[in-house]
Each structure stands twice: as C-alpha cells, then as structure tokens.
C-alpha cells in the first residue's frame, strides 16, 4: 500500500508542530523519518493514525484521499502503529491485547479467546516471534512487549506499519533483531515508516530518509550520507559531537557502595549485590538498557526505596537507613530521571521550585517563615547563570520546555555544596543546546572535585561523560570498565555478556 501525505499542517495553539509536510512511502520500502526531539515526527504520525486531526493537508492511501475520525478508521484502512510507549494493557494477556477492538465473539457477545490465541500463534510462527498468547503483558520483557505490538498491527492486516522510536527501550541485540523483522516485513510487501533520531539505525535499515526540523521537512537523504551530514541537517547547524573535558584529577575514594540489594514493593529483586566506588573528581557512568535496575540503584542511594540492604558510604558515613532529607543534607545532589514526576512541581513557580530541597532552614527559611526576598534574588541569579529561557522567575515550571525544566533542576541541585552528584538521565527529552549546556555543568562539577554518578541509557552520553563505565544487566554488574572501552564491547555487555578479557573490576 502506498502512503502519501500532502501538505500536512498541525497547530497546537500558536505553535506549529507540523508545517506543510509532504511525504511518500512506497510498498516494500522502509522510509526513515529522522529528526531531533520535538521536531514534530510523532505529531505527524499521530495525524496519520487519526489520533490528531490535521489543520490542513490530506492523507492518501493508494492515491485515495482518506478522512480518519479516529484510530479505528486508520486501522481499518490498513495502517498499523507500533507506539513508542506501548499501547498495551499491562493486566491483560497477550491474546486479550491483540484481540482488543477487533474481537471475535460467540453467543451474546462472549469473547472467543481461542480464536485470538490461534491468531497470535499463527502470526508469531510466521515471523518467528515466540510469544505465549496467555502470558500477562506486564510480566513480559520490553522486547517481547514490542513484538506483541507488532502482532497487534499484523493481526489487523496492516499494510503500512509505523514504528515510533522503536529502539529506545531495546538492547543493541534486540535492536538488531528488530531490524531483521523490519526487513522481513518489507520483503512481505509492507510499507514501513521508521521514526528515529538514531543515525546508525537509519543508515542500517532505511531505503529512504526524510529529515524533519522544527516541524518542517528540511530535506531527503540517502542511507549513504555521513553521520555529520545527517546530524547537521537534523539540528540545523554543525553539531559539536564532543564533550570537552580534561583528564580527571582523582582524589580519595569518597563514595563507596557495597552489596547493594533492592527489592521493590511487589517483592521483585531489582538490584542484586552491586558494589562500586567513585573517587573525588571522577565520573562513573552507569550504562544499560532501561529497566535493568538503574532507577532503583539511584533511588536506593537517595533513600527513596523501602527494602534495601548493603551499605552506601559517603565520606565514611553510612547513608542507608537515613531519610531522604538526611541524605540530601549530607551533600548529595540528585537529578531524578523523570523531572516532571520527581524533579519539579509543575504548578509552582521557578523560584519556588528552586527551594524544593531546602524548605527547612536557611537561607530560604527562617523560624518557619519563607525568606521570599532572598529566594527571589537567588532565583533571578540562577535564571541568568543557567540560561533558563523563561519570562520571569514567577513562571510556572510546567509551562517551560523540557530543556528549560531540566536546567531548573540542575540549577537547584548544583547550587549547594555537594559531596556527591547523582544524575539520572540528565538529558532525556532535552534539545541539543540544553544537552551541551548540561553536559558542561556535569563536567564542571567533576572538575571541582566532586564524585559524580551518571546514569544513562544513551550509550553516547555514557561514553561522552564517563571516566569509568559500569554496565548493569538485570540488576547485576556485568563489569566496570575504563571510559574509552569500545562501544561494541559495551553493547555486548549490555546484553549481559561478560567479555573474557575484562581488565578486572577496578572498583
């Protein structure tokens, strides 16, 4: 099935998310849609899928104009979508998820689960997926969940498949498998749209590349184009692909974690016997695919997890068993991985958010009263210093862009006397300019003699910032390796394989 988009425009208020975008995808073709975070790729696909209504422009399938009033219409027309955040219901089984919205029923609307199971098995076998139709989706690894999404689309006889950032949650190995599946689907004559910001993947699998920036198509490229060319097209200027940092000035081993074990509320062991240490003036980066215990590791250090055993020592003092406030007061700065959930209070102003972790004593609180003048002066200063783009310090943080929100968090955490910085996903969902700025701040913190723990699922960020790299897999340490370890080896370690020539755990 051939897809053609003509002059699609979508506005959100005054913001133009898609500006007259045109695009053609042929059957048997993998068409990559490349663009920076916030460029408007997902908006475009949501328009295609009937989730958003376009303000202007039309969608054509096999040269016929379509009018979708909802995803149901898009699906009926043969469009299938594999969403970035899986559209699966965790407490349903695979079969139930696949049949949802497309149920075969018996007498009086009773569900025909057998038919659904058979359908899952059939598709699963055709593409070699190995998915159990009766498994609960929440029990499945993310890679398998993604296959359920694909089965869902295929079970509805989709001829055009859209993959929205499909590799964000996958290991390098799973990514390779996904690429293989995409090729297989292409051979079966399906048209495929592949949305991503990862240059390597685009070049590996795409037949055609369309680059989008700020809601506009800025050009097409061949898979043979170089990384630098593609990156420049995406960002609109030559990108500084390097973080400048000198060799570390290592001090004492001030932060030591031993045998850390974390069990979550449902009794699942999320972190199992992790030990490592960080020297003053050193960045230890934690690499690994999302969901391998990183979140629990950082939260355990901060005192945010309930069932933790082992030892976490900073400057010789034990942090485990202390309240979050005591940990923060011991000099720990914390950039949480989800700034909207854990980092900021969206309805509070920038100034108010800047005192979130200092609401008990000076400088912002005196005898139970807020020192509003001091807070305002401080906020004014930080707004400048951290280049937060906002009208004023009374702007609610919820109204800021992702990059500016993150700068507020970073400003707050770095403006105390730190003895340790824990930065979880410090640049997730942030524009390139902010990434560069935040990375500089992290490096400056390290150079001031503070031990830094960076957690990132982006291998590039890990490689750019780390003095040493600790790779986590399924809650355990695969190895701790030097910062210049080749990415191929890191990728392998992220799948849990421990290289034979590992130069010992330098912890």
């Amino acid at each position, binding site marked *: 099935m051939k897809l053609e988009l003509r002059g699609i425009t979508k506005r959100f208020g005054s*913001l133009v998310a898609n500006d007259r975008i045109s695009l053609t995808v042929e059957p048997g073709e993998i068409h990559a849609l490349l663009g920076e975070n916030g460029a408007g790729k997902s908006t475009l696909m949501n328009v295609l899928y009937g989730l958003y209504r376009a303000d202007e422009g039309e969608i054509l399938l096999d040269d016929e104009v379509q009018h979708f009033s909802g995803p149901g219409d898009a699906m009926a027309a043969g469009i299938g979508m594999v969403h970035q955040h899986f559209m699966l219901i965790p407490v349903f089984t695979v079969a139930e998820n696949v049949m949802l919205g497309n149920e075969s029923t018996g007498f009086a609307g009773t569900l025909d689960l057998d038919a659904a199971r058979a359908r899952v098995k059939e598709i699963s076998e055709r593409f070699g997926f190995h998915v159990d139709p009766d498994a609960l989706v929440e029990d499945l690894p993310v890679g398998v969940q993604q296959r359920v999404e694909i089965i869902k689309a295929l079970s509805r006889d989709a001829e055009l498949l859209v993959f929205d950032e499909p590799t*964000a949650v996958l290991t390098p190995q799973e990514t390779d498998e996904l690429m293989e599946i995409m090729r297989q689907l292409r051979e079966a004559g399906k048209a495929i749209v592949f949305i991503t910001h990862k240059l390597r993947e685009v070049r590996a699998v795409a037949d055609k590349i369309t680059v989008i920036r700020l*809601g506009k198509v800025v050009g097409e490229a061949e898979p043979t184009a170089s990384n630098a060319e593609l990156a420049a097209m995406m960002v609109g200027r030559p990108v500084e692909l390097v973080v400048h940092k000198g*060799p570390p000035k290592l001090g004492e081993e001030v932060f030591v974690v031993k045998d850390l074990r974390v069990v979550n509320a449902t009794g699942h062991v999320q972190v199992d016997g992790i030990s490592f240490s960080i020297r003053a003036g050193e960045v230890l980066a934690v690499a690994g695919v999302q969901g391998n215990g990183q979140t629990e590791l950082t939260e355990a250090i901060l005192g945010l997890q309930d069932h933790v055993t082992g030892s976490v020592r900073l400057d010789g003092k034990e942090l485990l068993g202390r309240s*979050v406030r005591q940990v923060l007061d011991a000099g720990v700065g914390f950039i949480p991985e989800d700034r909207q959930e854990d980092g900021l209070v969206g309805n509070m102003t920038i100034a108010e958010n800047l005192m979130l972790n200092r609401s008990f004593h000076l400088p912002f609180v005196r005898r139970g009263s807020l020192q509003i003048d001091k807070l305002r002066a401080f906020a004014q200063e930080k707004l400048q210093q951290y280049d937060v783009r906002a009208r004023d310090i009374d702007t609610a943080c919820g109204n800021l862009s992702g990059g500016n929100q993150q700068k507020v968090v970073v400003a707050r955490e770095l403006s105390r006397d730190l003895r340790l910085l824990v930065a979880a996903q410090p640049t*997730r969902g942030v524009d390139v300019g902010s990434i560069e700025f935040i990375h500089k701040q992290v490096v400056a913190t390290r150079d001031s003699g503070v031990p830094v723990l960076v957690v990132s699922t982006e291998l590039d960020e890990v*490689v750019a910032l780390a003095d040493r790299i600790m790779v986590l897999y399924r809650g355990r340490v695969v190895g701790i390796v030097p910062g210049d370890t080749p990415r191929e080896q890191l990728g392998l370690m992220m799948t849990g394989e421990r290289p034979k020539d590992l130069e010992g755990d330098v912890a």
Partner: protein
Amino acid sequence: MNDAVTNEQAPAPAEKESGGQPPEPGKGHSLMRQIVAGDAFAGVLAVVLAVLVGSVMVAATDDTVRETAGYVFARPSDFFSAVWDAVWGAYTALFRGAVYNNLVSDFATQIRPLTETLKFAAPLILAGLGVGLGFRAGLFNIGGRGQMLLAGAAAGYVGINFDLPIAIHLPLAILVGTVVGAFWAAIAGVLKARTGAHEVIVTIMLNYVAYYLLFYALSKEGLLQAPGSANPKSLPMKESAVLPDILGDRFNLHLGFLIALVAVAFAWWLLNRSALGYRIRAVGENPSAARSAGIDVGRTWITVMLIAGALVGLAGVNQVLGTVPDGVTLDLDAGIGFDAITVALLGRSRPLGILAAGLLFGAFKAGGFSMQAAEGIPVDIVLVVQSLIVLFIAAPPLVRAIFRLPAKEAK
C-alpha cells in the same frame, strides 16, 4: 578521554513530547488545578445560572404558578406574573433575611440580617479553611462532620462541667475542643501515611463513629446527658464558657466571627508565607517530587490533618459555645461539615476565597430560613443552589456553552 567521540546519535534521546506541546505539569493532580484555575467571569455566570435553576424550581412548585399554568394560553399574563411573584418573593425574602430588611423601621433591626449572615458564615469559614487546607495537600477531608461533633462535645463538656473564671474557662473550652478535633482528623492522616488507607473512606467512616460516640455520651449521665432527662441533650454552657456577643445583646453575632477572621489570616500566612505551607503545597501538587526533595510526605499529611481538624473543630466549638450555647446535641454540626466542602471548592481552597465563599453561603443560610418562614419555600433550595454553583464553577466551558447557545438561537 577528550578525543573526538563521534557522537553518532548526537541530538536528543527518546522523543518524549514531539511536536513540542507544553508538557503537562505535575500530572495526576487535577484537583488543585481545577480548584485554583478558572476565570472570574465564568464564576459570576455560574452563580447566575445556579440562581436561575433555583428560580425554575421555585416557580415550578409554586401553587399559583401551577394553577395559572393550567390556562397559560388563555391568560399568559397571569402565568408570568405568578412566576414573577414566586421568584421575586423568594429572592427578596432571601435578601431581607441575609442582608438588609427594609420592612422594619429602626436601623438596628434593619441590619440585623447582616449580622445573622456573619454569624452563620463564621463556622462555614472555619470548617471551609480546614477542608481547603486538606485540598492544598491533596487530601480530601470529608470528615468535617465528625470532627465538628467531637470537638463540640469536648468543648461542651468543659463548658458544662468546669467552674472557672471566664478568662480561663472560655479559652480552655476552646482549646480542648480544638485539640480533640485535631486528633480526630489526625487518625485519618496517620492511617493514610502509615497504611495507605484512603482518607475519603476513613473520614467518612469516622463521621459515623463520631456520631455514635456522641450519641453514647449524650445518653449517659455523667458524660454529657443532662441529669433527669431522657433526651440526647446536655445541660447548657456555663456563662463563663460562652463566646460573648460582639455587638451587644440586640445581635446574635458573637466572638466566633472574629475567631474565623483570625483563622483566615493564619491560614493565609501558613499557606503563603510559611515553610510548612510551602511543603504542604509541594506535597499536594506533586507528592513524588516532594519526596525526592527530602520532604516527608506522610508526616506532612499528618500535620495537615491535625491543623485541618483543629480548624474544623473550631467550627464545632463555635456552634456549642457561641451560636447554640443551650446544650450539646447530635445535630450540633448543622450540616456545616459537608457545607464546608462546597465552601472550600467555591473558594478555590484559598483562604481569602474561602472567606468570600463562607460569607456568601452564610447569607444563603440566613436568608434561606427567612425565605422558608416568609414564603414557605423549603430551605433545601439553598442546598440545590449551592451545589449547582460549585458544579458550574468547576466547569467553565459548560457555563459558557450554556450562555452562548440561547444567544445563537435568539438570532
């Protein structure tokens, strides 16, 4: 390692909000957003709309209106004048009962309704502040009734049984009542913080438990029951424990209203100028961010419920020691515990808003009774109008849609 790393995936990790829509602020906390956000104009329209609906109900159940409706096509003027009489009569009676009575001659009696309004407003403001404070921390305190009942009972116990000079007796009775209200509410806070029990359920249940506890106390001599009486009622307060009238004997307005004003000032300071209030707001808006920043969410909940219970308790104390000092009864709360929820919602959980909402509802209450007396319209109509106001205020788009539609059709 400062050598050139080809930053292959260079720009941007996982695309979270493509299209750059402004991200949702601290999600899942729509309660506060809805209470605080909203425009004043829609608020006025909401009141108008609610009053209109009330008028329809008054007119539809009026006997003359129904009679004239029988021959509405023959003599439409009869019908419309009957409607006008019913509605105008109702609202002028309401106004005379709540603000200014033009039917009497001397000034003191003319403005007496206004002082009645202030008298009725005092407990609504106090309890409204308590409920509103809970809202600000993300807690829904439906337990106003129970907190009022037990606080009133405790204050009453002190007021009846102790013999002390007024300078000690009155403050002591107020204090005891307030503390009991605080602790009763704190049960819900502690259970939520320690076991996760939902405060809506717990406070509702505590209302019933408090009611029956009071019932028991009122049917047992030695606790609260008046000796020699079979009714669940206590003796009246001793003189030294009664809140004094502030405008002299001719008016019923007592010290409770000033206490309410002080409480408004306190709540304003607490929420806007104190560190505790800052933490309360942070916990209410986004508990997980507050927790990550070292604020003990559970302890904040407990503290909030203590203060909220104290404020609601003061409302109960106000009733027992001020408005109805002739004895503790089972209905001493007079529905204020629930009215407080609507007051807090209408006041958008802000102290000054609650002050205004409390005055408005106080006026409805004062006027409602005189409307019932003068026009025979059941006071329940006030309940209808109040709840409609809150509903409409919470949905400005609906109000606008309603007001736009007739305009379009008229053309």
